Every structure is written in C-alpha cells, then in structure tokens.
C-alpha cells in the first residue's frame, strides 16, 4: 500500500513536471552538436531520458548533422556564434584546432575527467597532455572475429601467439572448406587498420612504441615495426583467391556467408555480423609474438564530447559532461551500441557477449591507439595514407616489408622532426 501511494505520488509529480516543465524559468536546454545521426534514436530514447530523470531542470536536445558535413557546418556555426552548448569532438587535430581557436572550453578540471586513462584522453588533449578539452566518449577495439562453428568443426582453439595463429590458418587451409582469412588489399585501409595497426602494437609495445615514434626514438625501419609487416605479408597466402581485388564489403560478405573462417576486425562489425551471420561468432585479441608476452590492443579513440566555450549555460553543460564521464552513461551507451565502447576506466558489463569479449581485453591487454593519428599525420606525405598504401602493397605482395618500412620512414622524415610542434 505504501509503495502504491508512493508510486502514485511520483507519477503525479512527474505528470506535473511534464505538463509545466516549460514554465520553470530555471529550466535550461542544452543542445548537442553531433555527426552521429545514426545514434539519434539511442540519444532520444535511452540516453537523454536517463539524464533528464536524474537532473531535473536540464533539458537536452540532440541535434546531429551528416557526418561528411559536420566539420564544415560546425565551424561555420561556431564562427557565427550559433553552435550548440555541447559539441561532439572528432579525435585529434580537428578538435585541437577548435580548442586553440577558443571554441572549445578547457575541461581539465572537470571531476569526471579523472575517470579516463591518458591513452583515452590523448585524442582530445594538447600535445603535451596538459589540457584536456573533450570527455572521451567511445572507442573501437581491433581484434579478430571468427566463425566459432567452423572452429568447433575443425577442432581448433583460439590462437594466442603468432605461431599458433599461423598453425590455425594452416589447419583451415588444409581442410579446404573455408578460406582462412577474410581480407583484401584493394581498399588499402583494411590492410592498415585491420592488419598492420591491429597486430602491430604487440610488436612495438603499444603506447611505448607509439610515443617513441613521436619522440623520434623509434623508426618504422626498426625491427619491431618491420616484423608486423612481415607477418602481414604472410597473410596473403591465406586470403581468398584474387584478394588483391577484394574490397572491404567483399571481405565482410565472405565472412558472414560462412565462406571465410577468420575476419581481422574492428568492433564496429559486431552489430552487423550478428545480424547477418547464421553461425556462432567468437573473438580473440591480436596474437602475441611469443608465449607469455603482454598482449596489446588497438583501442582506438573515436568520439569525444566537449563544451562550447561561449555557451550561456556552462554549469548545466559541465553537469552533463560529468554524467557522460560516469559509469552509468558508459554502460547505457556501450549496451545501446555494441562495438562502440565507452572509454571510462571503470569496468562495464555488457549484455552482448561478443562486445563483452572485446571490452574484456582492456583488463588483460594494454591499450593503445593507431600510431599514425596523433601529431604524425600533420604533414605531407600524410603518414596515415602512407601506412594504407604500403601495408596494402605488402599484403598484396607488390612490395617487401623492408622496402615498405623504408618508404614509410623516408616519407615521415621528409617533413617531421621530433618536437617541431612543441612550443
């Protein structure tokens, strides 16, 4: 009876609040600028109601635009002073430029920022890491998704070392039912993001290697950077017939149709694969060079969220950003979008088992981001594009790993000197 009464009181209060919400003068509306129009329903149905329930007096509006137009549209709105209070941040240089131009507020002192690791913050911090201007929101994790039914049928185990990985590929090839690896070289980025940058961190020791590259202490021609290219070159034998002309959608279809056994993946594939594949899926992290080595994953920061420096409601905006930094948001968001993982250091449990598998690697492996994204892609030739090009050349067999590494390194050296961006 007591409970019932409380419920009635609560619903009456809610009805009044809903009916008169607009009338309260202290009600603040925050507008979010974003390029994720795919996420509109998730924001409107899950995230915003959860936030508004916990923070009466603040209303939130999600206002996305098309991904390809976002940067230009946002810049125009910021210049005209008509941009929303909350800004979704692209990683690295695009957002850094907004911060330097005074459009994004410094959030280093936001309490919630403490919930994030330095790797997570690196995409939205100044080069020296002193100031952070966006709350890290989501990342994608790289690894391998495999056809678990095929593995069971062939009696295979998830490989943990590179050696075991190739043993598994040999076994699948010997059986002949499946193409061992679903990867093609023609789309180039597949070779770099799903290949080189996926398996590489285990060799160059993740962040350590990435930082050394920025500091000029490591080179692409060093052994730990060439070796993953050699491994990538061996993948060619296990890819399907004509993989030199196989596109990324081809690879996806080969795998979901059950023709290929292992897919070098990014976690964003999870939702699509679960929908399309009619076999059980499993996932394993990038194999380590030798038994007992630390494993490293490419946990690539992709989306952040920050505050318009000229917002009229800085207090409400900070409240909202603190909520985004909380584990409540992390679990709501990661569950609504399996494959996009909130970056908060607090552990989250996900309902999706495959997504859970991916995110569990954060506990056992060291996280890093793609080595080309921070600082090193500011010049011409662009390091990320060079990585695409030469990784795909190596995979297709058009170039030796050593030549590819030398070409990447000389391209970088032609414009980059360590410390050139520090002032």
């Amino acid at each position, binding site marked *: 009876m007591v409970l019932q009464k409380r419920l009635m009181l609560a619903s009456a209060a809610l009805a009044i609040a809903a009916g008169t919400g607009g009338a309260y003068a202290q009600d603040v509306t925050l507008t979010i600028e974003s390029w994720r129009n795919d996420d509109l329903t998730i924001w409107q149905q899950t995230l915003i109601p959860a936030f508004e329930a916990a923070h009466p007096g603040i209303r939130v509006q999600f206002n996305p635009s098309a991904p390809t137009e976002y940067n230009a549209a946002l810049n125009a709105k910021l210049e005209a002073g008509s941009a929303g209070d909350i800004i979704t941040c692209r990683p690295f240089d695009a957002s850094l430029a907004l911060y330097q131009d005074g459009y994004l507020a410094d959030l280093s002192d936001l309490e919630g920022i403490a919930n994030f690791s330095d790797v997570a913050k690196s995409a939205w911090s100044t080069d020296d890491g002193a100031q952070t201007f966006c709350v890290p929101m989501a990342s994608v994790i790289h690894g391998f998704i495999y056809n678990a039914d095929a593995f069971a049928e062939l009696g295979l185990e998830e490989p943990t070392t590179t050696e075991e990985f190739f043993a598994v590929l040999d076994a699948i090839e010997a059986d002949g039912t499946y193409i061992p690896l679903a990867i093609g070289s023609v789309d180039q980025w597949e070779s770099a993001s799903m290949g080189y940058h996926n398996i590489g961190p285990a060799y160059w020791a993740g962040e350590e290697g990435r930082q050394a590259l920025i500091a000029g202490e490591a080179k692409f021609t060093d052994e730990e950077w060439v070796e993953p290219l050699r491994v990538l070159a061996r993948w060619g034998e296990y890819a*399907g*017939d*004509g993989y030199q*002309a*196989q596109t990324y959608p*081809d690879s996806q279809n080969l795998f979901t149709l059950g023709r290929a056994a292992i897919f070098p993946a990014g976690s964003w594939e999870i939702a699509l694969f679960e929908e399309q594949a009619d076999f059980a899926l499993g996932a394993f992290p990038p194999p380590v060079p030798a038994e007992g080595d630390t494993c490293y994953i490419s946990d690539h920061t992709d989306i952040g969220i920050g505050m318009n420096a000229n917002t009229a409601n800085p207090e409400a905006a900070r409240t909202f950003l603190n909520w985004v930094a909380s584990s409540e948001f992390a679990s709501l968001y990661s569950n609504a979008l399996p494959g996009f993982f909130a970056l908060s250091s607090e552990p989250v449990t996900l309902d999706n088992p495959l997504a859970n598998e991916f995110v569990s690697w954060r506990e056992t492996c060291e996280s890093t981001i793609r080595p080309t994204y921070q600082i090193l*892609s500011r010049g*011409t030739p662009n390091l*990320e594009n060079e990585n695409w090009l030469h990784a795909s050349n190596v995979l297709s067999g058009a170039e030796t790993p050593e030549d590819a590494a030398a070409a990447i390194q000389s391209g970088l050296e032609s414009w980059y000197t360590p410390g050139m961006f520090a002032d």
Partner: protein
Amino acid sequence: MAVDAEPVQRRARRWHIAVFLAPAVLVYTAIMIIPLFSTLFQSLFNTVGGQRTFVGLANFMVLFGDPRWAASFWNALWNNTWFFIIHMLVQNPIGVVLAAILSNPSLRLRGFYRTAIFIPTILSFVIVGFVWKLILSPLWGIAPNMLDAIGLRSLFAPWLGQEGAALTTLALVSVWQFVGIPMMLIYAALLSIPDEVIEAAEMDGLTGFSQFFKIQLPLILPTIGIISILTFVGNFNAFDLIYVSQGAQAGPNFSTDLLGTLLYRTFFGFQLQQGDINMGSTIATMMFLIILVGVSIYLFAIQTRLRRYQF
C-alpha cells in the same frame, strides 16, 4: 529628309544585343570565368606563418622541384596520357567501325544496336564503376565463370587489384561506357554524305573497303578530329570512374592515379590529410594549361589543315 534621319540612326545604340547577351554572359562569368581565374590566382599564394601571402611561382617550384610532389605529378600525368592513348586506340576506331556497320542500309535491327550501344553513355559513373567491379570481382563476378565456360579460366586475374593491369582495365571500362559517342557522331557524319557521291564512286568501281577508305573516311575526318579533342578534354578531366572504383587513393600503389584524383586528394584532403587549397590550385592550373595546350595544338595545327568539303 535623308539629312535629318542620319544623326538619329547614328545615335541609336543597339541595346537589345547587350540585353539578350546579358543573362548568358552574367551566368557564365559568375560560375565559370570568376572561379577559373580565382583558381589560377590562388595557385600564386600560400599560407606563410598563418598569413595568406603572395609567393609567385613557388608552388609550381614545389610541385616540380620536390621529389615527392614531382613523382606524384608525373605519375598522374603519365597515367592520364596512357588513359588517353587507350581511348584513342580503342574507343575511336571501334566507334568508327560501329558507325560504318550501322550506316550499312542492309543491316537489320539498326535502331536496336544503335540504342543498345549508346545506353551505357547515359548511365552514371557510379553505376558503371560498381557494375564492372562486380563483373570483374574474383569472388562473385561473372567474368571468371564466363572464362571458365570457354576453358580460359587461367586467363583471369584480379585485374583491378594489380598494379600493371588496373589502369588499362579501367580505361577499357571507360571505353565500353563512352564508345557510343564517337559512334553516334560519326554515324551522323556518314549519313550526311550525299548518295550521289557514293553512287559516283561506285560508277568508278570503288566498293567495299576501298570505298570506305577513299571516300567516306576523308569526308568524316573533321568529325574524327572533333571526337579526338572531346576525348582529350574528357580524359584529362577524368576523375569519377577512378574515384568510384578505386577510391581517392587511386590504388593499387597509385597506379590508377589521374590528375583529377591527385587534385581531389590535394585540394580537399583525404582521411587525416588536411586539404591544401594552394597546392590543389597549382595542380588545377597545370591541368588547365595541359588541356589548353592540347586544344590549341588541335585548333591551330590540325584543324586548319583539315580539308572540308561542301556539298
């Protein structure tokens, strides 16, 4: 009276000419001439220390002096030239042959062939690129199966993924798409040859091939000249087909990179690469100059020497 009328006539300005020309001149100036000259102008500037500064020909010196820029530019220019050579050697001769066959009055279903061959021309590049990618796909394409059916499976290769074959393959796809244009133009030219000329030739004993080479071909040469220049301009502006089928990185290993894709990557940027308006304009200016020189050679050296016949 005549004396009175004369000053009036002199004062009468023919305003209607300006009025009638104005819409076309204004629109053309606004959307063609101003952008063209501002692009040419932009290639003389660069950002130095955050300021837009006049740098003279420095951008051109970078484009030709810097080994990386020069390598990409010459690579794109050579690819573009090869793209053009394939069109000239394959598309235009096939167009002439098709037109000659179509103009044969004894051929049945002429309307059907004419339409069928012309249809790809009106398709979007996106559709053509996508369809051919599917046809040539080593995984799902029909090309490997068709070759298999005639026992030539061993000839099939993943052409679009091979450095040596990709550009020629795409050039042939483009030929497939556009062969209808030279065919139609030459067909029209062949139809305009009066029957008396042909009959006179027959009276003189010229038939079949020798009739075509001695009578019809000389009469359609001006049309072939126009087609060549259209092909030249179209090829050196080409971009869409490469972008659709190989992406802006024009792989594998830049083997399909044309001036258009190089311009796109430079001007608008790509992935993490920031767009560079000034270097982009420099490349655009070079494209403009290359096409200008090509068209001028045609206009002044070739077209003036072509003999025309009036009937």
